[in-house]
């Protein structure tokens, strides 16, 4: 056991205590957290104010009134977030408010903007004024655009200085469109506010009635984002850990240091130490990214989205997924002499390993469908699929099914590690042409 820990310690230290790992797995998550928290403070966009005269060419009083209304600085709104809301509702409200606040902050200040109606004959002089800065710009709405039967919704032209900020262009474009529609509605005797309220689509909550009589609200956020996010994170972290194991095995084999190691410990002990060491590496990576996720959830007051049961199950399936990937990577790493040879064997393995990603839409759409259930029992897909199913299922999965899948995954992981150990024992001493996958399977039977 002490040898296993010695090997594990070396693999862990020589991977984690490197600049590449520090940058990729520690600095990047910390930067994500800092950017998320500090974006408000450090990344405030500088929006130049829109001040001066804006010419409205041949605009009638209805259009000018509608434009003045749309270009006026927005009035401050009171928060609609109710802390007593359910977590998913709270997240939705917080995200909506954050979006509104962002839109307000990126809108140019128009408190010093003055709209001036001008005849079309003055347009050339106004264009000259736009060039020398005496006019902010000019809007010319084509005749007939305010009529309800204007072809293709009417049209308008906005003249601006070459140096005009894109936020100015966006504001004038959006406001002109809205003003034309508002003026048109008022001309028809309708209130734009009333019409907008009438066409505002309702929010709909889906509630599934459980077989046990309970009710569960269905939120797209909890149903898709959390399980898919965790599964992708699990895939990335286990794959990266497995890849480190592959590279380390190839290095030891290609530099011939493997034989010195095997003179000190058994192939099984060496493999066990490597798997343990890189499990630690994967755990550090997972911890760093989970830290980011937890900070995000705290920021959005959504910690309740994850239960302790989810954490235990997620950790169990993470360990199993890592062991399965480690077994595949160790088998491949021991059989080849360099990374080019490894790539040829990684091709078929990658096809299988990519399946959980490809199956995301199928599993989240129907977590209890035939594909989902069958894939739950196929290694190495099972841990990834089960994480998706447990989190995405509108109704909790039957406990026996979860336990059965867990037990089966543990047996399969054990079998894969055993087979990898047999392949590793033979492969690390082989030189020359890399074996075919079939030949590697034959190595399992070697004494």
């Amino acid at each position, binding site marked *: 056991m*002490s*040898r296993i820990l*010695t*090997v594990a310690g*070396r693999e862990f230290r*020589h991977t984690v205590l490197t600049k590449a790992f520090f940058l990729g797995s520690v600095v990047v998550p910390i930067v994500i957290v800092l950017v998320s928290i500090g974006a408000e403070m450090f990344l405030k966009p500088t929006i130049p104010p829109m001040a001066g005269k804006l010419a409205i060419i041949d605009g009638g009083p209805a259009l000018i009134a509608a434009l003045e209304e749309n270009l006026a600085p927005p009035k401050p709104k009171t928060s609609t977030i109710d802390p007593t809301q359910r977590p998913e509702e709270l997240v939705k409200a917080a995200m909506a408010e954050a979006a509104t606040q962002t839109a307000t902050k990126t809108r140019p200040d128009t408190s010093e903007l003055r709209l001036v109606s001008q005849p079309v004959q003055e347009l050339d002089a106004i264009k000259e004024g736009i060039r020398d800065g005496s006019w902010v710009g000019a809007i010319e709405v084509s005749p007939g655009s305010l009529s309800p039967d204007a072809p293709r919704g009417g049209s308008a032209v906005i003249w601006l200085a070459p140096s005009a900020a894109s936020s100015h262009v966006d504001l004038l474009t959006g406001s002109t469109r809205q003003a034309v529609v508002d003026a048109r509605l008022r001309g028809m005797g309708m209130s734009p506010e009333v019409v907008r309220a009438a066409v505002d689509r309702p929010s709909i909550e889906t509630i599934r009635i459980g077989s046990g009589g309970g009710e569960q609200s269905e939120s797209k956020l909890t149903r898709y984002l959390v399980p898919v996010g965790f599964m992708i994170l699990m895939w990335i972290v286990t794959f990266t850990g497995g890849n480190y194991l592959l590279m380390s095995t190839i*290095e*030891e084999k290609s*530099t*011939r*240091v*493997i*034989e*010195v*190691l*095997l*003179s*000190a*410990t*058994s*192939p099984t002990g060496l493999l066990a130490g490597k798997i343990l060491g890189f499990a630690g590496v994967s755990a550090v990576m997972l911890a760093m990214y989970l830290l980011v996720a937890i900070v995000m959830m705290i920021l959005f007051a959504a910690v309740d989205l994850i239960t302790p049961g989810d954490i235990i199950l997620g950790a169990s399936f993470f360990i199993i997924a890592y062991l399965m990937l480690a077994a595949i990577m160790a088998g491949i790493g021991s059989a080849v002499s360099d990374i080019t040879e490894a790539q040829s064997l990684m091709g078929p393995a990658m096809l299988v390993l990519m399946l959980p990603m490809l199956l995301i839409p199928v599993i989240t759409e129907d977590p209890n469908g035939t594909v989902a259930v069958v894939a739950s029992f196929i290694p190495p897909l099972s841990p990834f699929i089960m994480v998706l199913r447990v989190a995405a299922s509108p109704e909790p999965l039957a406990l026996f099914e979860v336990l059965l899948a867990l037990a089966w995954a543990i047996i399969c992981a054990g079998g894969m590690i055993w087979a990898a150990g047999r392949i590793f024992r033979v492969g690390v*001493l082989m030189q020359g042409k890399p074996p075919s996958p079939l030949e590697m399977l034959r190595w399992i039977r070697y*004494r």
Partner: protein
Amino acid sequence: MTDLSNTIDIRNVTKRFGSVTAVQDLNLAVPEGCLIGFLGPNGAGKSTTIRMIMSIIYADEGGIEVLGRSALDSKDRIGYLPEERGLYRRMRVRAFLRYIGRLKGMTRASADASAANWLDRLELPEALPRRCEELSKGQQQKIQFVAAVLHDPDLIVLDEPFSGLDPVNAALLSGVIQELHDQGRTIVFSTHVLHQAEQLCDRIFLIDRGVKLLDDDIMSIRDRFRERIVNVELAEGATLPSFPGTRVVASTEHADQYELHVDDGVNEQAIMRSVIEAAPIRSVSLREPSLNDIFTRLVTKGTSQ
């Protein structure tokens, strides 16, 4: 029955790789404190035997005991310098030797102290803080030798220890090996350079195509293969007639050099006189067979059979 005075006991061991039998029904006993040379042509089964002694691979049939226990249980008491040598390129020498020492059951402090001591002995103390990739091939070779002896093993297995070393460093290493032998360590020494084996070893194990051809101490081997050989170097353009009671072997390297293997009961002095009288010569001398002669004879005989 295991003889406790034997460091290595190999009994009826057979090892196959697919359809190839690498070692066949091998029996070998290496006495404690012995410096034994493992000799044999390429692919003879030397490395396979060594790997089985190190329990890196396992025999299909038969059994191996090392230091009175199974080979696997004795790993901490064996030092091994493999033929295929390597180091972690980016690792520092101190960290590498500490890692190997820890794997061999040493504490961190004792591994560090032993590494420093051995590098001093091998005149390479400055290597400790350096990365392995920064060292020359010969220096890397020395580091790997240190890795093999760091933990003060009772059995030391050295597979081609002098390859890659210049004559000065080869002599230095040879002295260290002799010193370890004098201290009573059992040393298994595999080599293709037969005169090195002849100088260092007190016992020889010769294997060819997985079958043991010879296993005895040097003195007994010399007695057993005692033969008189007359070396003849002819003058340019001269030809050597045949002499009754001898077998003529032409040199493969020099066209005008010959060896006359004198049969039992024939006077070698009379043969030498006959040579001088029969042809113009540059030199004629008498010698006993070297290990190289015995090796060639046994392997050639094995091949012809």
